[in-house]
């Protein structure tokens, strides 16, 4: 069992992620967010546990339900709100939105929608560091769903990571569904850990509804990657406790399945309280604090300027004078 301090930190990250997501869902319902909104409900344990294993200097390619990992790795509710509201102050300056947000300089990769496409860039970051003698014990984490595991882009990247033996942790959140498609239509193996060996990855499995189990598996995988034991895969078994996006009622999820998978957040809270790691009052206070933090971030973001078509520059090249550009030494 991990140390109490870490478990309390994980609990807080999970609560904050849930609060962020809840607020985003409400904003979407109120019509304040353009486009789609995606929630990580039910995945906070696995995502948060992975995020807590990341250290400054690491690089992380989140998937669409990784609010918890993001927060654990340094994203703030203000970063979230600025982007979902399209503020010019946000990472994406209104050009891209929602869960595409990221910031290369903080190691949170701003993703393109195409599932699987962010894995090879993580390999590229690590390879560049190794070539530059700057790899140290940094690692790269790649999050993906069981649906995204099928993309050719991911496959090709895993091949490279295996062959180059890069310090990567692949975090597979198998949440029973890819949009409305059940996992039986996504893979024909027992579970996706069976894909690890073929890429030269070591594999861990964990119960995604059990935060302690997630912590155990993630800690083992990140430690192994950091000490040079080669690429690692962690597969979590869980259920998406929301629609694909807020527009989706997920009515295609049978009740039987819903009853089989618990909600990691109250489960973890009960465990921590039962084991005396957390008091009920602390839990209540944490929830209130997180809600307040999210609310403050929202107010701040709302007060900031939105992207502005008239004054924002529309340049697609960073070079200002391609016409006369010349190599010089």
């Amino acid at each position: 069992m991990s140390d109490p301090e870490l478990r309390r930190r994980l609990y807080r990250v999970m609560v904050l992620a849930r609060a962020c997501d809840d607020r985003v869902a409400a904003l979407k319902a109120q019509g304040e967010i353009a486009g789609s909104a995606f929630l990580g409900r039910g995945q906070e344990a696995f995502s948060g546990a992975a995020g807590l294993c990341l250290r400054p200097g690491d690089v992380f390619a989140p998937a669409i339900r990784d609010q918890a990992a993001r927060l654990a790795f340094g994203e703030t509710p203000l970063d979230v709100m600025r982007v979902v509201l399209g503020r010019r102050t946000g990472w994406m300056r209104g050009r891209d939105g929602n869960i595409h947000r990221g910031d290369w300089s903080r190691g949170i990769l701003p993703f393109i929608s195409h599932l699987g496409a962010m894995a090879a860039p993580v390999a590229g970051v690590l390879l560049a560091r190794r070539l530059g003698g700057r790899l140290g014990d940094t690692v790269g984490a790649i999050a993906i769903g069981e649906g995204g595991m099928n993309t050719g882009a991911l496959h090709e990247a895993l091949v490279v990571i295996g062959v180059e033996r890069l310090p990567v942790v692949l975090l597979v959140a198998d949440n029973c569904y890819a949009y409305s498609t059940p996992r039986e239509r996504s893979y024909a193996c027992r579970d996706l850990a069976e894909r690890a060996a073929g890429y030269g990855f070591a594999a861990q499995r964990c119960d995604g509804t059990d935060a302690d189990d997630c912590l155990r598996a993630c800690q083992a995988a990140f430690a192994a990657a950091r000490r040079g034991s080669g690429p690692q895969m962690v597969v979590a078994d869980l259920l998406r406790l929301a629609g694909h996006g807020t527009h989706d009622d997920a009515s295609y999820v049978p009740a039987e399945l819903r009853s089989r998978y618990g909600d990691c957040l109250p489960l973890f809270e009960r465990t921590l309280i039962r084991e005396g790691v957390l008091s009920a009052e602390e839990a209540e206070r944490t929830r209130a604090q997180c809600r307040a933090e999210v609310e403050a971030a929202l107010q701040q973001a709302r007060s900031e300027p939105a992207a502005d078509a008239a004054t924002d520059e529309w340049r697609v090249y960073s070079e200002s004078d391609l016409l006369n550009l010349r190599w010089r030494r």
Partner: protein
Amino acid sequence: MKYLEAIRLALGEILAEEPRAFFYGQDIAGPFGGAFKATKGLSERFPGRVLNSPIVEDAMAGLAIGAAMEGARPIIEYQFADFASIAFNQLVNHAATTYWRTGRSCPLVIRLPVGGTPGGGPFHCQMPEGWLTHHPGLVVVAPATVADAYFMLKDAVACRDPVCVLEHKYLYYHLESDFDPATAEHLGLGRAALRRRGEDLTIISWSGMVHRALAAAAELESAHGIAAEVLDLRCLKPLDAESILASLAHTGRVLIVHEGFPYGGVAAEVLALCCERGFAWLDAPPQRLSARDTPVPFHPDLFAAYLPDERAIVQAALELASF
């Protein structure tokens, strides 16, 4: 009937009337019925013929090629046209080349939800016709009306060549007409349609932009007394050169309006066609209005400024008319 309902109607009739047809795509089976609900109810009515695909856009196209060559009539749906980028190779190098290389036709249909919606952002709003038309061998159509949404889909299935059907996402829910398949005019798949007649200039457009062109034409008429003809290309490859040149000959002035990227693509091809083959009729330099040369922006204000709007079309038309 709405544009989306016309598509659903056509899809149901295709399964009923064409026993070789089947659908393959992400999340298209029941009860979900597709990200845009185009196939809602169909897997229940036609068991085993509406299949959910894993997230494998490239293999979806490859699978359709094999099924088509085997004699089936596969109709694949990409969730957003933007994700068809993953299948670029199978589409342009395999589906498109097979008849020419082997003499055997490859009758498959690719349904592509295209076009911008506010908040959609860089990867859920693209227009793919630029790259689909550039490579030889694909038929590319872009229905802009409820009737075309219905007819062109069925015509695409009747076609023995691979057809990409661009369905505009904004039109899905927002375009409605009292279309009756039994009585509506059924143009051939490759024909352009004159949506409005005029003397002073021709606005050439396709897909969702046709409706902005029509609105601009109405404004030009009522506010400026300028009679703009609006030609809806319908089929982007091959082009109905005859109709394009006839309209150019009629008005002498051409403005091409679309929502895709500005460099190359269909707009440049149509403009080149007008100049190469209709030079003598040109009373003014033909012009294009396109999106800006950037990715599609997420924020609704940026998005609004990104695409040519009615005002921009009117402005460009006025300049063209007074050249």
